[in-house]
């Protein structure tokens, strides 16, 4: 399957099941809303923890949504067809990652500045939070896809996926939340955003190959 065909197929399929787009978004908003309730509603405290809270919630939302990346295809048998097709697996894997991010990651990124505002994140950090998530969440989806490719078909794969993937998410979290926190203190953030962009490019080029290898392994290839 070509890149465009896979991308179009994924978008159409997701469009017909809007819950798969909306649920991660609700999850993201709800997790963030738990923090003022659980920690403290005081503005000075919330503004300090806001970048980390938004980033961790986004990370968990990506983790939960990426788990379904191959589930429907696996159950319907479309995944096997993809594997036996005489074309390279790299391109459809890349397309699936990008489509999945467009449908579940991008909405999170768009909502994040609002949540930052609700957590009293200083206004000058709002743009950095947005840009950081824009560069960081596709990386999270790409890394998550590697874990999903290995756990597709494994029983209770969800919690296993979290065990495998969360340690790998640390660099993105450190630089992403770090950039927003720097911006809140008025420090320059170009370098941190550049590192996030570098991680994005590296993961988008390397992860599809690993996902393809993982899919072949977990389908007994």
């Amino acid at each position, binding site marked *: 399957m070509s890149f465009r065909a896979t991308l179009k197929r994924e978008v159409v399929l997701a469009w017909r099941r809007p819950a798969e787009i909306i649920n991660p978004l609700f999850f993201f908003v709800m997790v963030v809303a738990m923090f003022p309730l659980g920690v403290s509603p005081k503005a000075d405290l919330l503004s300090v923890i806001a970048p980390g809270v938004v980033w961790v919630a986004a990370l968990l939302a990506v983790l939960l949504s990426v788990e379904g990346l191959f589930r429907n295809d696996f159950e319907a048998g479309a995944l096997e067809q993809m594997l036996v097709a005489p074309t390279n697996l790299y391109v459809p894997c890349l397309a699936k990652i990008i489509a999945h991010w467009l449908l579940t990651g991008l909405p999170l990124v768009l909502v994040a500045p609002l949540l930052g505002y609700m957590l009293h994140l200083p206004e000058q950090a709002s743009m950095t939070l947005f840009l950081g998530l824009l560069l960081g969440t596709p990386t999270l989806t790409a890394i998550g896809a590697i874990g999903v490719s*290995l756990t597709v078909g*494994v*029983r209770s794969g969800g919690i296993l996926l979290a065990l*495998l993937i969360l*340690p*790998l998410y*640390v*660099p993105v979290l450190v630089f992403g939340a770090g950039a927003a926190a720097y911006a809140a203190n008025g420090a320059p953030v170009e370098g941190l955003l550049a590192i996030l962009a570098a*991680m994005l490019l590296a993961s988008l080029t390397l992860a599809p190959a*690993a996902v393809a290898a993982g899919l072949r392994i977990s389908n007994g290839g």
Partner: protein
Amino acid sequence: MWQTLTRWYHQWGSPRYFFQYSGVLLPWLWPLAVLTLVVGVVWGLAFAPADYQQGNSYRIIFIHVPAASAALLGYIAMGVAGLVGLVWRMKMADIMIKAIAPFGAVLAAIALITGAIWGKPTWGTYWVWDARLTSMLLMLFLYLGVFALMNAIPDPRQAGRAASLLSVVGVINVVIVKYSVEWWQSLHQGSTLKVVGESAMPSEMLAPLLISMLGIYLFFACTVLMRARTEIMVRERKSQWLREVLR
């Protein structure tokens, strides 16, 4: 030279050759491991001079540093084995991953626990979110992830190949994790041992440290070889050669 190396590499990649020759090697390796470990640890704990700043509390270094470095080395070994397994589909590679993962996790845990015990008198706290501590904690998580993945997949070959891929991804990531958390926070003392250049440690302390590190490495090697032998016996239980060897 190159031919000898490749032949040696392929021979050790076959379970049968591995099983036979590790059986020859182990009776020599075990006493050597115990000897170096005992000499290194006893020398370090009882006879090495006390530190002028930290007094006797620094002596935990003779356990802490060897365990931490062996945990790191084990993780790299797992990544190399994973690459070998993915590229050449060598049977021994995923057996090695299965052999290394649990012991490596234990070593990482030992490094964390001894570090906490050492941290109390030196820094006044058992735990800080410092770069080195955090990266060791994450390495423990990565070890546990490989372990959990292997346990979740019933077919041993498939489990091995999945763990191979995860170890390769993990090794690439460990480097990034290390630098990212270092940038994030660091309180840990700088590395005392240097491969190149002069170590910042007097030789009366350095010698027992190096010996106990060698001891841990040898002990690690012995355990991995033994676990790999057990795994070979499980996987090849139906093959003729194993019966002949064991007879």
